[in-house]
């Protein structure tokens, strides 16, 4: 295969990854890496580097829209970014020394966990009249967000456990070159009991910042090959944009089931590949 053909086929695959990612809410990064590794035989670290750049591109676009609408909470995002960025630097350093096979296995397991998390219930928890965690109050985290019924106030709970979970999300992001949005959502939604809308918006703001912390290390180590990063990031960006447009018209529930099954199979393949089993 020649270079232009290679770049075009990668861009097309990346476009589908971005499209699927935004339709099922997983993000393109976690889908594109296995496709590059399994489908094109690309070294997992190059794939991770390209995926991380695409994560920064898509999350910057999405986060901007949320910021403008006043839904995301910058104070929550920035204080938790302390945990995610430090974790990401550690994770990225670990990624540079771990063997490819080990990374493959960890990637597959994390992908399965991501699928499981996205199947979990997303019922909006009742925002009772309870009080926020005193530390969260001290950090000025409780806020309000616009709803059709006007501004709604919310409380913020269990800051320390949430912060620690964010550290884990950061490590995974740096180690695997993913946005780890699903893990960030767990920390904010399940642990800190922040309203889901605020959680997803703030998570988008954080994903780009977290990814930037690890991508600096990938860059210095030479895992960003321009000839791979360009088609991947452009493809995912366009795919994610189209996906966001399609969300309102596509049969999301059916697509989600189909793609989640596909992604699970891909995850298993990654684990098998890392274990040296070939199918």
């Amino acid at each position, binding site marked *: 295969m020649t270079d232009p053909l290679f770049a075009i086929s990668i861009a097309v695959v990346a476009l589908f990854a971005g499209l699927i990612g935004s339709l099922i809410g997983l993000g393109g990064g976690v889908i594109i890496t296995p496709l590059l590794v399994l489908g094109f035989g690309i*070294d997992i670290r190059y794939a991770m580097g390209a995926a991380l750049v695409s994560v920064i591109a898509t999350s910057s*676009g999405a986060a901007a829209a949320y910021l403008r609408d006043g839904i995301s909470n910058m104070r929550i995002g920035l204080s938790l970014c302390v945990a995610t960025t430090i974790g990401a630097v550690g994770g990225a350093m670990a990624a540079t020394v771990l063997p490819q096979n080990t990374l493959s296995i960890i990637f597959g397991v994390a992908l399965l966990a991501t699928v499981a998390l996205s199947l979990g219930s997303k019922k909006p928890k009742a925002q009772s009249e309870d009080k926020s965690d005193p530390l969260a109050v001290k950090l000025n985290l409780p806020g309000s967000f616009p709803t059709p019924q006007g501004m709604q106030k919310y409380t913020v709970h269990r800051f320390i456990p949430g912060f620690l979970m964010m550290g884990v999300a950061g490590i995974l992001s740096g180690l695997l070159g993913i946005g780890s949005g699903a893990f960030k959502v767990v920390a904010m939604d399940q642990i800190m009991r922040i309203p889901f809308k605020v959680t997803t918006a703030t998570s988008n703001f954080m994903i780009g910042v977290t990814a930037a912390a690890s991508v*600096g290390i990938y860059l210095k180590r030479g895992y*960003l090959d321009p000839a791979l990063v360009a088609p991947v990031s*452009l493809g995912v960006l366009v795919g994610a944009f189209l996906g966001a447009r399609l969300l309102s018209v596509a049969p999301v529930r059916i697509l989600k089931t189909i793609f989640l099954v596909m992604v699970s199979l891909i995850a298993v393949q990654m684990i098998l590949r890392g274990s040296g089993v070939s199918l």
Partner: protein
Amino acid sequence: MTDEKIQSLLARVMVGGVIISGIIILGGLTWYLATHIGVPPGDHVFSGEPKFFETFGGMIRRAFSWHEIGERRSIIMVGIVLLLLNPIVRVGLAAAGFFAQRDWQYCAISALVFAVLVFSFFA
């Protein structure tokens, strides 16, 4: 400066940054591919990249040098680095905004995140 003002400034910087870097990456990729027809891709085996993008200035110089066709992809790298700077600028602007608000607590928190990012890129 109110929170709303900081947020709308950040939003504009983010969208503008993504669009500009996307255009540079697309342009660089097109140019690179046009000069590389028939060359097989070399990403299949991991090996550290040649150190031709370690400085931003060197990258730009090489991108536009007529003697080094093989390093046209430096243009792509310029676009990529611009994209990567986006979150860093985002955090830096937030720090400046909180400073203007005299919110020292969040000025310090943003500065800490900013320091981690700068460390990862330059340390």
